[in-house]
């Protein structure tokens, strides 16, 4: 009797998870071309920016250590994550409305399960792209400096994934109320790349003492800065003051590890909850 009950429970779980798994696999199949393009782009940029300048120009010096090399090579990861997230996640919710596919899918599948499956599928592919970038850079790190790979490189990968989840949640939030996929892509790219930078600069200019902990842009600096051997623990080591003709400017080098992780998680949770609420109320 107990065995039957257990089997029934498992069957219920299986039936509940089946739409998510089906959508997940469908999303993987649907977006694989985008994945291939982004992976090729990621590897090409690693080779173009972190290999060829050293291989082709004899005068151009290699950084001193493997960690320094990784730090200089990781500058492009922010752009790749933002563009990738915008292209992979922009259509997660709004495409069901703009392309009217919701009329077919929503009556059959629970709409939350559909979105969860799509989100996880896109996230898996983007993790693949980021992993390809890190693997390519790691292989070049071994090529130039020998093994093993500096252990902080794995921390950097972990923080890059948290950043990816935060950015993807931000894009999903915009996808929940925007009308078309293209609009979502343009808006989120503008916000994450340009608006974010402008706001950060204004805040730093107006309130130089205030650390822009709210900013995804500022927190993303931890991805490369975690590779620094003596990670700053004191506040005064985390910024540099510049003065030019009585003009005072503060440059924030890195957030704290705990601070950045908390902000990434906050962005993820808040954006996904708000997206879910908007999605629930949105009519076809």
């Amino acid at each position, binding site marked *: 009797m107990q065995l039957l009950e257990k089997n029934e429970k498992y069957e219920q779980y299986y039936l509940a998870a089946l739409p998510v798994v089906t959508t997940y696999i469908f999303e993987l199949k649907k977006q694989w071309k985008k994945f291939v393009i982004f992976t090729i782009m990621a590897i090409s940029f690693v080779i173009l920016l972190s290999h060829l300048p*050293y*291989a082709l120009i*004899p*005068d*151009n*010096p*290699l*950084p*001193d*250590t493997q*960690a320094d090399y990784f730090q200089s090579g990781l500058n492009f990861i922010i752009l790749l994550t933002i563009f990738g997230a915008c292209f992979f996640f922009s259509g997660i919710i709004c495409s069901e409305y703009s392309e009217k596919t919701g009329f077919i899918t929503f009556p059959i599948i629970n709409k939350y399960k559909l979105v969860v499956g799509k989100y996880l599928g896109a996230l898996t592919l983007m993790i693949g792209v980021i992993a390809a970038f890190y693997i390519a850079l790691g*292989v070049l790190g*071994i*090529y*130039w*400096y*020998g*093994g093993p790979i*500096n252990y902080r490189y794995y921390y950097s990968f972990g923080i890059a994934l948290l950043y990816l989840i935060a950015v993807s949640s931000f894009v999903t939030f915009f996808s929940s109320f925007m009308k078309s996929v293209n609009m979502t892509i343009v808006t989120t790219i503008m916000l994450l790349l340009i608006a974010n930078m402008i706001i950060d600069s204004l805040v730093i200019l107006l309130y130089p003492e205030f650390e822009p902990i709210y900013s995804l842009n500022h927190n993303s600096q931890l991805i490369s800065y975690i590779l620094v*051997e003596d990670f700053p623990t004191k506040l005064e080591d985390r910024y540099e003051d510049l003065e030019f003709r009585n003009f005072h400017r503060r440059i924030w080098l890195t957030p704290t590890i705990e601070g950045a992780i908390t902000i990434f998680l906050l962005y993820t949770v808040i954006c996904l909850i708000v997206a879910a609420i908007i999605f629930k109320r949105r009519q076809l």
Partner: protein
Amino acid sequence: MAKLLKRDGVKRISLGFFILSTILIGLCSNSMAASTTYEPALNKGTVVFKVDQYNEGKWEDTVDRELEPDDYFDGDSDEIGARSKITIKNLAEYKWDLYDALIFFFDVESFIDEDALNQTELFYLLSFLSKDYVDALYPEEHKVWEALTVQWDFETEEFDESPDEKNYILPIFQEPKYYRDLLDDYNKWALGLNTTMLLLGIEPFPILDGDDFLWLLITSGIFTIARPFNSYLTTLIDKLGSDDAEVKGNTLILERKGEEEYIVEVTFSDQGMQSSLVIKNDEGRVIYEIVQDNTDTIVLIVSGVIAASIAGIIIVIMRRRKKFKQ
């Protein structure tokens, strides 16, 4: 008329012969020049060295009773398994004069025992070591390819993250004869200063012959040569007048006398760096050996082959599936 034509013919033949010989001589001189033109083989990247063999007893009996390998090669080089690492950051053309050689090759600063001198004596002595003084007396400059590197000393444990020495310079002289010029200038400079050193009651700078200089180069860890290696080494020992040195392929063999006679064999890698150093006694038994450690390269190649094989297998399976579906 016939005579005139004959004369013309002779003239033409002579002219042709002259032009041909001029071209041939030109070609010959070009090829001669080409054979003595050296080029650097050093590339950016990291090289790891490992102490492979060390027989302490034999070292004391044969090489030196007082000094150990770590006095020559630094770090933990007196421990089997200790590894050192050097990362070549870039390669650029510069010019070296005697002052650069005094600092980097002859390491003259380490000779001066500062505790044995008072302030005035030290100041006086250091004035002979100043760049201005040395450059004024020995202004000759020699073309060199200079590799900027960072270096980790021999360690038995894992390498520290930060290198032991930043901005460590490996010079490759564009002509082997420059070593001779620098050695001559050094000996002149040392002779000029040694009287002062003796007056001050400190040990004078050693006067070196070609063999001593070769040994100094080998133990300095910065001895790097240009391509073609065999020709470079042969010219070098010829110019230095080293009687106890010979060249076999890319290997320099030097006979030395310590406690007893011993042989030093230095092999140069395809980049012109010292890839192995073997010290043997006269019976041919290895006393000490440093070799290049290629474990990382092998791991990288094996990983590459495995990754390529996996990718290949996946592609084949996908193609078969497609065919099967069709």
